């Protein structure tokens, strides 16, 4: 009754091509934006901003990057954490070695480093695909972390490669409180999400999807496989790299190469599986889900229900629940939580008269 596009006519090309063609969606979007930009800063406390909201946004960006590569271009990657590491260490070095380097420029340059490394490790995708490629990206995962640990130059010769993020200033304005960091992250993530959304609904994204669905057929209709795949690798790694830099500068402050391990790569993969493979919204939902689940479990474990769970099970419950959820989602809803949201909208359109 309330969610219906009847009566909304598109009178110009511009209206036809907008991201949210239905008015209710637009209203919903602006309400969500207003909530994130205005309401959250007013109601959230330090803990929420620092430990939950900022990481959710950062992981959303990383998941977005992986989703571009895996969800849209169909190239499975198990090395997203390594590309995050490249972004983080790249940004760190640009900030460190060039005097008066603006943070945002360093961020983009760090992302570009990640993109270059991504192209390098994406090269095998021209010859191999599927599982073979997954293993090839594992090579990136182990190799990059090893390089960052072994060669002290990258971490300015600190012990075991730990880097400490410099103070972030933009036009002389220091971003040093959790709230400011949250807002900066939010702005960056919004911009990147907008870019991603526009990429996947334009010719670029259509090429990716054609390659994903069947690369030989895509080649036959005139899509250059090499360019398209490498482009997906580059953009995906760029996103991951920026996410990695934000992870270091906005969230943790101090990171070591070992922090960007295979486990983190898997977590990002889980985010897109649970959120929705091939969905921009899904990246956000998935990231929120994966970040919030351990927090939620922790809370449950420390209440009355937790008393009934034996401690040796409780410690591993997170693993079991993660694994179980992945399997469950793949079986029941392979398109993830984003698809559930879409189905709910379909239902809403005809509610309350389904026939």
């Amino acid at each position: 009754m309330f969610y219906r596009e009847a009566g909304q006519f598109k009178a110009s090309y511009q209206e036809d091509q907008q991201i949210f063609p239905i008015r209710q969606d637009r209203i919903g979007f602006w309400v969500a934006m207003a909530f994130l930009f205005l309401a959250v800063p007013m109601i959230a406390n330090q803990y929420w901003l620092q430990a939950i909201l900022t990481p959710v946004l950062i992981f959303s960006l990383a998941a977005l990057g992986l989703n571009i590569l895996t969800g849209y271009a169909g190239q499975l990657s198990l090395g997203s954490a390594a590309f995050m590491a490249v972004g983080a260490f790249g940004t760190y070095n640009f900030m460190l070695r060039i005097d008066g380097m603006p943070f945002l420029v360093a961020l983009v340059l760090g992302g570009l480093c990640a993109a270059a490394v991504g192209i390098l490790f994406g090269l095998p995708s021209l010859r191999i695909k599927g599982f073979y490629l997954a293993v090839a990206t594992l090579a990136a995962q182990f190799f990059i972390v090893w390089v960052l640990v072994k060669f002290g130059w990258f971490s300015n010769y600190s012990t075991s490669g730990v880097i400490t993020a410099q103070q972030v200033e933009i036009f002389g304005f220091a971003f040093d409180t959790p709230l400011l960091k949250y807002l900066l992250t939010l702005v960056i993530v919004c911009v990147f999400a907008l870019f991603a959304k526009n990429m996947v609904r334009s010719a670029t994204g259509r090429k990716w999807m054609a390659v994903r669905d069947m690369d030989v057929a895509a080649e036959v209709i005139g899509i250059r496989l090499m360019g398209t795949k490498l482009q997906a690798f580059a953009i995906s790694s760029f996103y991951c790299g920026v996410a990695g830099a934000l992870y270091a500068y906005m969230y943790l402050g101090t990171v070591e190469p070992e922090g960007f391990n295979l486990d983190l790569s898997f977590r990002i993969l889980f985010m897109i599986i649970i959120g929705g493979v091939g969905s921009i919204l899904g990246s956000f939902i998935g990231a929120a889900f994966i970040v919030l689940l351990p927090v939620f479990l922790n809370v449950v474990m420390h209440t009355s229900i937790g008393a009934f769970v034996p401690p040796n099970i409780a410690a591993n419950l997170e693993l079991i629940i993660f694994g179980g959820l992945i399997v469950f989602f793949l079986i029941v809803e392979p398109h993830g939580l984003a698809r559930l949201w879409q189905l709910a909208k379909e239902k809403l359109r005809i509610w309350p008269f389904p026939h």
Partner: protein
Amino acid sequence: MTFFFEVLIGGLLSGVLYALVALGFVLIFKASGVFNFAQGAMVFFAALTFVGFTEVLPGWTGLAEGGRAVFWLAFLLALGSMIVLGIATEKVVLRPLVNQPAITLFMATIGLTFLVEGIAQGIWGTSVRGLDLGIQDEPIMWVLDRADMIVSKFDVFAAAVALVLFIVLALLFQYTRVGRALRAVADDHQAALSVGIPLKHIWAIVWGVAGFVALVAGLIWGARNGVQFALTFTALKALPVLILGGFTSVPGAILGGLIIGASEKLAEVYVGPFVGGGIESWFPYILALLFLLVRPEGLFGEKHIDRV
């Protein structure tokens, strides 16, 4: 030169262990087209279950601790658990995912990895256990005297076990009714179905066999490095082996394992010092990656032809 051979033999013998894990992958991939990332978790589960049973059995049955009876009983129970795990996996996880893209199945097995690891540690606890197979990790005196080389007794024993396992599996595949059916299914699911081979039974058998292989691999790895969470990483080492050997070839898994084992040890010893060491962690992957650029289907893999 002696040192070179020592490293080479050490590498080859550890390669046998990689091959053992890779074999589990190949069996399942051949028969059901599933790339079972959870094989490493299964190895961990198997070893942990075995050790767990050897610990609790004396208390339950009154058998002598560390005795032969306990060993075999624990082995049988662990084998039973592995077969149950394998069949349950097939039924609960993979059956509902039939006809999904291979990548979906792969991701499901990643989920399964976490599930199995969680369950194993939930039941048996997270502490590191020792596992004693009664063979010491000490140099063989005979070789040390004659050739002045250190060759571990345990490594040779492990290689012998692996060899026996390979031969048994080869015979099983080649000469038995079940083996023929397995090969038929591996060749072409539909054709196998149409000549009346019960696909579901075959898959259950394959998962059972893969569980058995995981148990053997788990016992040997566990005895060598202790039964701990790190066992699951053996699966990651088995991946370049598979790439090198091809996903569908048993001889490929063996040869790939040997090549990876030998080359990573040699690289660590001869190249490692120049770049700061620790290259073992990524060398196999880079080697496999370079190899893929030349021969994308692996040493013995089937050549894949794409059709629109």
